[in-house]
C-alpha cells in the first residue's frame, strides 16, 4: 500500500492544516478557515475530522474512532479502516490507550489525559447561524464579541418550552472570549470540554473551518442566571453494565414498545462488564 502518502494527504496539505491547527490553538474557539480537500468519502461522514486526524497522525500513534460513542458503527469502522490502510497506524478501542481519538457526537466517558488529542467531526461550525445567516455579519459579531444573539436563542427555548430545550450542540464560550459550537455532542458532555487535559480539535470539512480548545481551557456553557445550565441524561442506569452516571442510548427491542437503555460509549460499557458490573438485563435475568 505504498500508493498512498502517509495518512492519505500529501505533505503540503498536512502542513497547511497544521498551520491552521496551530492558529486555532493560539486563539481558542476561533474558527480558522482552511483549504479543505476532497476526501474519498461524502461530506457529513467526517471529512473535516479526517483531515485534522491525518495532519496530526504520526506512525507511532494509536488511533481510536467512535461514532456516537461506539467503536463498531459504520462511520467509525470505515474511518478506522481508512487510516489503517493509508497510515498503517495501530488502532484501539480503549480510550485510555489511544493517543488520537476521532469522534462524532460524543466525548468518551473515561477521563482523557495529557498528550491525547480528541478530534471532533463538525457539521456546522457557526453557532450564530441559527439567527444570523450572513457570514459577513457573524464574523463581525465574533470579532466584536457581540453575543447577545446566542442568548436570544436560549430565551426562545425557555419561552417556548419552559426550560432551555437545546440538548445537543449546546453553545459554549471558550476562555471568556469566543462563543463556539461544540459540535452536536449531547449537552451532558459539555462539562467535560472545560479544563480537559487533552487537546480538543474541531474540523468542519464542508465549511472549511478548524477550531480548538487547548488543554486546561475554561469552557462555559451559556445560560441565564435564573435558568442555569444543567447537563442532562436519561434517568436510568445502563441495562448492561448498571452504570447510572454514563450517557445512554435508548434501544427499542421489539414492536411491543419494549426498550432498553445502554451506554452510548461501548468501550466504557465493555470495560465495566469485563470488571464484573452487571445491569438489569445482564444480572439475575441472564
Amino acid at each position, binding site marked *: 500500500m505504498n500508493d498512498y502518502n502517509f495518512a492519505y494527504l500529501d505533505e503540503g496539505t498536512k502542513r497547511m492544516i497544521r498551520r491552521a491547527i496551530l492558529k486555532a490553538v493560539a486563539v481558542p474557539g476561533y474558527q480558522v478557515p482552511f483549504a479543505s480537500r476532497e476526501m474519498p468519502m461524502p461530506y457529513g461522514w467526517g471529512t473535516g475530522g479526517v483531515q485534522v486526524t491525518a495532519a496530526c497522525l504520526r506512525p507511532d500513534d494509536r488511533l481510536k474512532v467512535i461514532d456516537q460513542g461506539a467503536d463498531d458503527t459504520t462511520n467509525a469502522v470505515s474511518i478506522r479502516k481508512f487510516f489503517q490502510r493509508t497510515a498503517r497506524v495501530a488502532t484501539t478501542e480503549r480510550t485510555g490507550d489511544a493517543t488520537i481519538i476521532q469522534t462524532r457526537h460524543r466525548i468518551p466517558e473515561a477521563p482523557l489525559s495529557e498528550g491525547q488529542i480528541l478530534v471532533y467531526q463538525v457539521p456546522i461550525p457557526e453557532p450564530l447561524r441559527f*439567527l444570523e445567516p450572513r457570514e459577513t455579519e457573524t464574523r*463581525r459579531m465574533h470579532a466584536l464579541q457581540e453575543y447577545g444573539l446566542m442568548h*436570544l436563542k436560549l430565551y426562545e427555548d425557555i*419561552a417556548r418550552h419552559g426550560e432551555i430545550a437545546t440538548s445537543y450542540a449546546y453553545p459554549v464560550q471558550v476562555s471568556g472570549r469566543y462563543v463556539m459550537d461544540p459540535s452536536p455532542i449531547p449537552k451532558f458532555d459539555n462539562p467535560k470540554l472545560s479544563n480537559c487535559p487533552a487537546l480538543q480539535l474541531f474540523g468542519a470539512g464542508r465549511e472549511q473551518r478548524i477550531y480548538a480548545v487547548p488543554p486546561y481551557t475554561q469552557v462555559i456553557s451559556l445560560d*441565564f*442566571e*435564573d435558568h442555569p445550565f444543567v447537563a442532562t441524561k436519561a434517568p436510568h442506569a445502563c441495562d448492561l453494565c448498571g452504570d447510572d452516571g454514563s450517557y445512554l442510548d435508548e434501544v427499542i427491542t421489539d414492536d411491543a414498545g419494549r426498550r432498553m437503555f445502554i451506554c452510548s460509549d461501548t468501550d466504557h460499557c465493555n470495560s465495566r462488564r469485563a470488571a464484573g458490573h452487571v445491569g438489569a438485563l445482564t444480572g439475575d435475568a441472564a
Partner: protein
Amino acid sequence: MSEQAPLLSVRELSKSYGARRGCADVSFDLWPGEVIGIVGESGSGKSTLLACMAGYLAPDAGAVVFDTRAEGPRDVLSMSEPERRMLARTDWAFVHQNPRDGLRMGVSAGANVGERLMAVGARHYGQIRAQAEDWLERVEIAAERIDERPRQFSGGMQQRLQIARNLVTGPRLVFMDEPTGGLDVSVQARLLDLMRGLVRQMGLSAVIVTHDLAVVRLLADRLMVMKDGLVVEEGLTDQVLDDPQHAYTQLLVSSVLQV
C-alpha cells in the same frame, strides 16, 4: 435657555454616488428633547442623509458629533466600529419604514424586545421577560402575545413592536425612516400619538424622515426641507408649513390635500 450642548451636531455632511449628489453640506443641531423632521420627495437625499447620520452609509465628508454619556461630544464617524455599534444598540435607535427590516421575524415578540437587553449583558431571563412585557404594554400590545412571532401581528402592531424593541434600552436619540409609511390612516394616528407620548416621557430626541407633512406637523418641533440633496429651507415646523419661503417648499405645501 440655550446653554445646554446639542445632543447631535451634524456638520457639512456630504455623500455622492459617483457623479450624482446624494446630499451635500447638510448642517444642523439637535437639542435634547427635540424632534426634527426632514421632508422632501423621493430622491431628495433625505434617506441618504439619515443613513449617513445613523452609520449605515459612509459619508464622503462632514462630521456627526454626538454628546456621549461617558465622554461628551464625539464625532461618530471617527469612532471605532465596536464603539459605534455599542452606541447603536444603547443610546441610539433606528425605526425602519418596513418593520421587517427592523424586526427578527423568526423569533417571538418577547425575544425581539429582549434582544437589545441581552446584547448589553442582561442574563436574567425573568427580568428580561418582565421588561419585555412592560414594553409591549407601553406600545399597546397585550402582554399575553409575548410569545407570538411578529408575522402574526398586523402592520401597525409590527411597527409598535419595532418601537418597543428600540426603546427598551432607554436610548436618547431615535432615527425614524418614514415610520408611518405603509400604514392605514387610523393606524398611523395611533402610532403618532404613541410616539408623541414616548418622546415626551423619555425626553427623546428624534430625527424623522418622511414625505408626509401631516406627520411632521404633529410630531416635529423643527423642519428641514430637502431637494436634490440640498437643504432648501429650515425652521420651526409651523413656520415652514404656514409661511414657506422657498419655491419648492411652497409647491410641496400647496400640493397637500387639506383635511
